[in-house]
């Protein structure tokens, strides 16, 4: 799958819209196992991204994602700011000319390098990894979103090993990771604009 600047912009705007819609839910997921702010954090960041694009929209898809990533880094804070920011920035930098799937792989690698989480640690990596793998295997954004959703659901029975949920030990079991759920929204947004 290749991405033009307009589609990249539409993707991020759709993601911002979904985050707006679901911010309360994301924060509620962060309540039992975290510090009740994930939805608020991501919403603050995506508002800033949308506002930045209203000022000036870059003219390549790579620049769009890179700009979105650095805006997230500069406005979100918390764990999700650097992680989502790195995901989009690395993806954007790897994108130009090339294929979205392999660019997202570079983004995923950046997230793993930065945060040190592996699949099974009950973080956003658990949703991001299968989604990227789906695209790499040539499956549709719809299927990638489905894979992300399965990955997010798979965090529920786990004892978290990274992020705040890890402080809870066994008490965190039975809760879905909020960051993983945001990744589902990112791929749902992609599916919306690719359709």
């Amino acid at each position, binding site marked *: 799958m290749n991405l033009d600047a307009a589609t990249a912009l539409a993707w991020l705007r759709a993601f911002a819209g979904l985050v707006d819609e679901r911010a309360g839910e994301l924060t509620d997921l962060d309540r039992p196992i975290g*510090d*009740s*702010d994930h939805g608020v954090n991501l919403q603050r960041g995506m508002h800033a991204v949308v506002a930045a694009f209203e000022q000036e929209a870059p003219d390549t898809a790579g620049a769009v994602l890179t700009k979105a990533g650095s805006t997230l880094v500069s406005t*979100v*804070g918390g764990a999700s*700011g650097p992680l989502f920011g790195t995901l989009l920035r690395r993806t954007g930098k790897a994108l130009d000319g090339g294929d979205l799937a392999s660019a997202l792989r570079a983004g995923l690698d950046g997230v793993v390098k930065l945060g040190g989480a592996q699949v099974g640690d009950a973080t956003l990596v658990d949703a991001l990894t299968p989604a990227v793998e789906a695209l790499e295997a040539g499956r549709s954004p719809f299927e990638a979103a489905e894979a992300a959703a399965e990955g997010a659901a798979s965090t529920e029975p786990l004892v978290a090993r990274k*992020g705040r949920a890890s*402080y809870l030990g066994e*008490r965190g079991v039975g809760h879905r990771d909020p960051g993983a759920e945001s990744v589902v929204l990112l791929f749902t947004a992609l599916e919306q604009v690719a359709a």
Partner: protein
Amino acid sequence: MTAVAKLLDDPADAVTDALRGLAAVHPELSVDLTQHVVSRGDERRPGKVGLVSGGGSGHEPLHAGFVGLGMLDAAACGAVFTSPVPDQVLAATKAASSGGGVVHIVKNYTGDVLNFQMAAELADDEDIEVETVLVDDDVAVTDSLYTAGRRGTGGTLFVEKVLGAAAEKGLAVAEVAALGRDVVSRSRSFGVALSPCTTPGSDQPGFDLPAGEMELGIGIHGEPGRRRVPVPATGVAREVARTAVAAIDEDLPLAHQDLLVLVNGMGGTPLLELQVLAADVVAELDARGARVARALVGNYVTSLEMAGAMVSVCTTTPELLELWDAPVRTPALRWGV
């Protein structure tokens, strides 16, 4: 239980408004209301190592209340319970820099670690040498290479005070950082909540705590603790003291040690109660053969309006005690000057 109304104007502006208040009553500080960075307004010796800390807001007086002579040079204040972004930490780093390098004192949370790390890279681009001291003093969390590790909590105060004195004394950046790692290795904390707290703008507390129960092993972000137990009918403070000191002693044997002790309120517990807890903590330490060299009792590292307390200790040497006793002049900690 309906939450008590907050004394704020707009929850979204809580941090800006609080910093405005800090600026209004502390003209000796320099407060950047856009970046949410608080720094010393006075001249510092060229080459003095700069000390920067920061993190989410909601822990007042930590960190902005510890900016001043003998302690931090600058603090970066994130949104409530959200670590600051790299831009803020970079701004604080620049404000703290007098040419001798800067030490970042970072509480060990993924968000703080990542944002400070990115800021350190940006500072490096501007030729400011940055060393990082990671504070992970909370014994409630099992430490492991494969997890996020222990949280940084009350022990941060020991690190900031001791390093502040060391930097004033003229230690070099690597020495200050090494000393910081030593202080961290000597510091342990354990906290208990008697009520949850609610982030401004939220309509729900971070967790529900039924009447008659308390959370053991809490962090400082309104998150639940490791265990929930019934509040005993009598001897509540004794039970809290015993639990906290036992957890600490198990991890870092306290017998024959001279200690800095912090009996720290989480924000909503009155001093009368903290003093009762302090009596029990001192008795408990005494029973374990430890000696209290210096102690502080009050709200220093808080979690909004949470009721409860945290016990922090740091084993000392005569040199560390001398640094602890050195003059400090900040909004929240002041002596000798």
